[in-house]
C-alpha cells in the first residue's frame, strides 16, 4: 500500500485495483460454495440421473431430453411446469399487490416528520413479527383456523352466514386467497422496513426545502420520495418476485404437500421438491432449475429495466 503511489494517480482508473480487491472475497466464496454445485446442476440437466430405491440410474447422457420432457404437453394439452409457474405467479401477485401498497403507505407514515407518529418502535416490531414465525408453523396455525371444524367455520355457521361448513381447502379460490393473505401478512412488515430504511436514507434537506416551498404531501411523495426510492423499491419488487417464484413452505403445508385442489396450489418449487425427494432426480430437477433460472432472469431484468427507466425520467 504505497501511499505515494496512490497520491500520484488520483484519477478513478487508478482505483480499479481496489474494486477487484473489494469484490474478490465475494467471488471466491461464491465459486467455492455456490458456483461449483450450480455447475453440477446444469451439467446434470443433460443426463438421466436418479435413484430407484438405493440403485443409481444413470447418469446417461440424454441431451435436451429432460427439457423436452419438461415442456411436452400431457394428454389434455397442459404443460405442468408452466401451469405450476402460473400458480406461483398468481399467488405471488395476489399477495404482493397489497403488500407493496400497504408497505409503501406505512413507510411514508412512519417517516413523516409532520405526522410524527408515536409508538413507532412497538408498531415496527409487531408488524415484523409474523416474519419471525416459521412459515411451516404459521401454516399449521392457519390450517387449524380454517379447517372444517375450525373456529372460522364455526363462527360463520353460528352467525347464520353458512348452513353447513365450507371446506376452505377444497376450492381453488379460497386456497389461493388464504395463501396470498398469509404471504401478505408474513412479508408486508419486511417490505415496510426495507422501504423505510430507503426513505430515511434520502437527504432530509430535500424534504425540508419542499416543505418550505409549501408542497403538499402527495407532491412530495411523487416528486421526491418515489423517484429517490426507486432503486430500493425495485430491489424489493425483484426480490419479492424471486421469492414468489420460489414459493414453497406455505402451499406445501397448507395442501399437505399435494398442491390440492386439483394441482392449483402446486408451485414450481413443490415440483422441484418432488423430483429431489425420494428419487434424487438430478436430471429433471437440473432441467427444471435451469428453466426457472432463465424465466426468473428474464422477468427480473424486465422489472429492473422498466423501473430503472422510470427512475431516470
Amino acid at each position, binding site marked *: 500500500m504505497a501511499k505515494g503511489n*496512490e497520491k500520484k494517480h*488520483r484519477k478513478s482508473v487508478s482505483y*480499479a485495483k*481496489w*474494486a477487484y480487491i*473489494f*469484490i474478490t*472475497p*465475494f467471488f471466491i*466464496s*461464491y465459486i*467455492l460454495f*455456490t458456483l461449483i*454445485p*450450480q455447475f*453440477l*446442476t446444469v451439467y446434470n440437466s443433460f443426463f438421466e440421473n436418479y435413484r430407484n430405491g438405493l440403485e443409481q440410474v444413470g447418469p446417461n447422457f440424454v441431451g435436451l431430453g429432460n427439457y423436452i420432457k419438461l415442456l411436452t404437453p400431457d394428454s389434455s394439452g397442459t404443460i405442468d411446469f408452466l401451469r405450476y409457474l402460473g400458480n406461483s405467479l398468481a399467488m405471488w401477485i395476489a399477495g404482493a399487490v397489497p403488500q407493496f401498497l400497504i408497505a409503501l403507505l*406505512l413507510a411514508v*407514515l412512519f417517516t413523516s416528520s*409532520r*405526522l410524527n*407518529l408515536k409508538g413507532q*418502535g*412497538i408498531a*415496527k*416490531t*409487531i408488524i*415484523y*413479527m*409474523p416474519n*419471525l*414465525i*416459521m412459515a411451516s408453523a404459521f401454516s399449521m*396455525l392457519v390450517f*387449524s*383456523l380454517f379447517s372444517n371444524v*375450525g373456529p372460522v367455520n*364455526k363462527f360463520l355457521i353460528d352467525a347464520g352466514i353458512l348452513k353447513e361448513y365450507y371446506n376452505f381447502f377444497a376450492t381453488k379460490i379460497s386456497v389461493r386467497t388464504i395463501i396470498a393473505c398469509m404471504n401478505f*401478512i408474513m412479508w408486508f412488515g419486511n417490505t415496510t*422496513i*426495507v422501504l423505510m*430504511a430507503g426513505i*430515511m*436514507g*434520502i437527504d*432530509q434537506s430535500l424534504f425540508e426545502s419542499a416543505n418550505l416551498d409549501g408542497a403538499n404531501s402527495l407532491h412530495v411523495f411523487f416528486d421526491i420520495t418515489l423517484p429517490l426510492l426507486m*432503486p*430500493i423499491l425495485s430491489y424489493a419488487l425483484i*426480490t419479492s418476485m*424471486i421469492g414468489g*417464484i*420460489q414459493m*414453497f413452505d406455505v402451499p406445501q403445508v397448507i395442501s399437505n404437500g399435494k398442491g390440492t385442489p386439483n394441482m392449483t396450489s402446486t408451485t414450481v*418449487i413443490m415440483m*422441484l421438491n418432488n423430483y*429431489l425427494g425420494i428419487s434424487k432426480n438430478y436430471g429433471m430437477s437440473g432441467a427444471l*432449475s435451469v428453466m*426457472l433460472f432463465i424465466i426468473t*432472469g428474464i422477468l*427480473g431484468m424486465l422489472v429492473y429495466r422498466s423501473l430503472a427507466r422510470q427512475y431516470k425520467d
Partner: protein
Amino acid sequence: MKNTNKKARFLLIISRILAYGFVIFLCFLCLFCFLLLILMASKSNSQMQGAFNFRWGGHFMENLYNAWNDFSINIPVGMVNSFIVAMSSAIITTYFSALTAYGIHVYNFKLKNVVFTFIMAIMMIPSQVSAVGFIQLAYKFGLTNKLWLLIIPSVAAPVVFFYMKQYLESVLPIEMVEAARIDGSNEFRIFNEIVLPIMKPAVAVQMIFSFVSSWNNYFMPALLLTKEKYKTVPIMIANLRSADYSKFDQGKVFMFILLAILPVMIVYTILSKSIIKGVTSGSVKG
C-alpha cells in the same frame, strides 16, 4: 391566515387519527398471529388432536417445562449453536455484501457491468438447487458437523449485495468519497470509517433479515449437522416433530417454536434502533 392555520391543524389531526387507526389495525392483525401461537403453546397434545378453538389450553407452563426438559433436545445448546451461526452469518454477509456493492458502485473498472449483471443473474437461481450439490460435496470431503460450513458461504449473498448496491445508489454522494481521498485516507479506511456508517440503516436491515433467515434455516443444517452438540433450533424442532407416537407432543413443538422467536425479537429490537439512529444523526450529508 389564522383560519388556514386552523384548517391545516384540523387536517393534521384527522390524518393522524387515520394513520393511527390504520397502523393499529395492521398491528392487531399481526399480533393475532402471534397470539395464536401463544394459544397453541398452551394446549396439550390431545387437545390439539381435536377441533381448534380459542379457549386457553391451560398447559402453558407444563409445555414449557416439558420442552425445556425434553431429554432428546437441549434448548440452550440449540440456541447457542443457532446464535453462533446466525450472528456470524449476519455480520459476514452484510459486511462483505456492502464491500462488494461499494467496490462495484464507486469504482470504474473494465468488468464493472459484467460483474454486476453476473451477480444479478446468479441471484435468480433457486437456492434449493445449489444446496443439493453443496451437500453432496460436503459429504464427499467429510465436512459434516462443522458450523463454519454454514457461516462462510454467506460471504457471497447476491440478494444482500443487490440491496446494498441499490442503497448506495440512492444515498452515497461520490463527492464524499473523493473528499476523503484528498484527506489522504486509504480506500479500506474510507469504506470502514465513512461509507459503512452511512450505510448503517441498510446494514441493520440486512443483518436482521439474514439473521432471521439463518435462524430459521432447516434444510441444509439438518443434513450437515447430525451430532447432538451441533444441532440448531430448527433441527431440534424437527426432532420433536418426528418423535415417536408415545412421546409426540405438539404442545411442546409449538412451545419451542415460540421460544425460538424470542432471541430473534431481541436482535431485531436492538438492530431496529440503529436503523433510526443512523438517520437521526443525519450522517448522509456528511
